[in-house]
């Protein structure tokens, strides 16, 4: 199994400038933990009570000249009471066709508090399939935000298990498609024990012949009383040939629970559009304001202001149809 390149950008939290250049050879930088090199999976452990003061950025890069099929694993382990901040970016640097299969496990110990941002920005030739296995022990809090900005085929399979009481899991996602792109999200979230909370908010903006799937299962086992579980999936179609398929599912075997889900597929509101135009905002800008308003509900889940603004600007560029890369990051990739 080959692995992609990883960079740790220590100054990310401050200015988002990578001071560490992309290494020629694979190099791993670690914060408060250990990394096993060689052919083993990337293994990041944040020990008991350790607090990551700065955000750890991991950039998975696929360049030309590598094997076009690639599989790798990344494991994140947060000890009891640990504080974790991770940003994981995936990019392709060439128009070649790539297939990437990725397995990510995230395990949150008791009372740990983790924010995990996934940003995917790849070329149309890229097919990227990731399965996430996420486990939360009692009192653990996870805030996970997926931003699928670009990519030929993007599949995210997210399995979450809430296995200790008072675990709290927020999952949000924004996916943008145009051309022939396909984005496929599948969330399978299980409340294994009582008194946990989960909230999901997934939104898509689909243009051209873009297609998106959202399959979201919330399962509440018989003993998991006092569960609170919410799920929302909203899609905005910008063209006649774009398609959104949404399949929310609730399987609830406990009786004392609060659960809800909702899914919508809609278009830009014409009355809003007209109102903005009468104020002199050109139709293109007005549409963009509406799309950003729609996307913001997901973007605002990112708690760091700098990162949120960075991601919002990438999203806006993407929606304008401009090449979306951030300045100031290494190799202009993110």
């Amino acid at each position, binding site marked *: 199994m080959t692995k992609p390149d990883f960079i740790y950008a220590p100054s990310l939290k401050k200015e988002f400038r990578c001071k560490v250049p992309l290494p020629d050879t694979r190099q791993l930088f670690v914060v408060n933990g250990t990394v096993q090199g060689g052919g083993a999976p990337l293994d990041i452990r944040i020990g008991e009570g350790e607090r990551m003061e700065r955000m750890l950025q991991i950039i998975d890069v696929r360049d030309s000249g590598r094997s076009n099929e690639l599989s790798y694993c990344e494991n994140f382990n947060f000890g009891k009471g640990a504080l974790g901040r991770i940003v994981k970016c995936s990019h392709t640097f060439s128009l070649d066709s790539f297939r990437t299969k990725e397995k990510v496990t995230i395990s949150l110990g008791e009372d740990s508090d983790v924010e995990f941002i996934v940003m995917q920005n790849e070329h149309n030739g890229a097919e990227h399939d990731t399965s996430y296995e996420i486990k939360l022990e009692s009192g653990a809090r996870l805030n996970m935000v997926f931003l699928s900005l670009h990519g030929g085929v993007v599949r995210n399979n997210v399995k979450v298990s809430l296995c200790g009481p008072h675990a709290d899991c927020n999952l949000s996602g924004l996916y943008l498609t145009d051309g022939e792109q396909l984005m496929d999200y599948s969330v399978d979230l299980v409340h294994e024990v009582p008194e946990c909370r989960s909230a999901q908010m997934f939104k898509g903006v689909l243009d051209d012949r873009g297609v998106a799937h959202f399959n979201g299962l919330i399962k509440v086992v018989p003993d998991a009383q006092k569960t609170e579980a919410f799920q929302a999936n909203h899609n905005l179609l910008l063209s006649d040939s774009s398609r959104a398929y949404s399949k929310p599912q609730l399987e609830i075997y406990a009786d004392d629970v609060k659960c809800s889900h909702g899914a919508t597929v809609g278009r830009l509101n014409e009355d*809003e559009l*007209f*109102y903005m*135009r*009468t104020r*002199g*905002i*050109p139709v293109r800008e007005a549409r963009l*304001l509406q799309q950003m308003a729609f996307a913001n509900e997901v973007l605002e889940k990112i708690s760091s202001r700098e990162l949120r603004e960075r991601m919002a600007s990438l999203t806006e560029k993407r929606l304008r149809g401009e090449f979306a890369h951030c300045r100031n990051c290494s190799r202009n990739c993110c």
Partner: protein
Amino acid sequence: MDAMLKITDLHASVGEKEILKGINLEIRPGEVHAIMGPNGSGKSTLSAVLAGKETFTVTSGEILFEGRDLLAMSPEERSWAGVFLGFQYPVEIPGVSNVNFIKAAVAEHRAQRGLPALSAAEFLKQMREKMAYVEMDSSFSSRGVNVGFSGGEKKRNEIFQMAMLDPKLAILDETDSGLDVDALRIVATGVNRMKRPDNAAIVITHYQRLLDYIIPDVIHVLYKGRIIMTAGKELALEIEKKGYDWIINDKA
């Protein structure tokens, strides 16, 4: 003086249904025209057609604004040219803040006039000044456009936007409806402060009381898609007392 707005034999429909059935109207700079008329007579339709709403199809007639063919222009071009519509039902735009909205609009107006963008400080200064016109609290800036605003707050926001954009022709569609006495005075004062010899207004209303504050040069009565009477400002009082029947019956 040449007319600022000249509407000639304007017909407009929704689908098969004709709503405006031959409107003629001329407004010169400095004038204020009131339009009254029973519910459903076509007042909002006329203002929407002037602002460029595509729901309505203009089947015949002409609208000239400062000599330019208004019907050939997009809604944003009309705004740049100086036409402003204060909506009867202002639209809520969740997720777009009031300040970003008006900032985008002002920036576009300036760019269209070849003016440099305002500095952040200058923009905020103007914004504060114009919000004060309508006694709007600064906490409204960060809220979504009209989202959760009360009826009266929405109308004040319309006048605030008008003040920021400084139009040549303001069309105020029932800006007075839903306002309490104080709000009515505030909105009317806001409108009056902007009155100049080189701009004009169309004020659509059901009530004489607004016209106590904003004094019109003429009042038109619109009925079933036609202007059936044009008179001086005294007409409002008469309508208040006697309703529209006498005018309608007189025409029939």
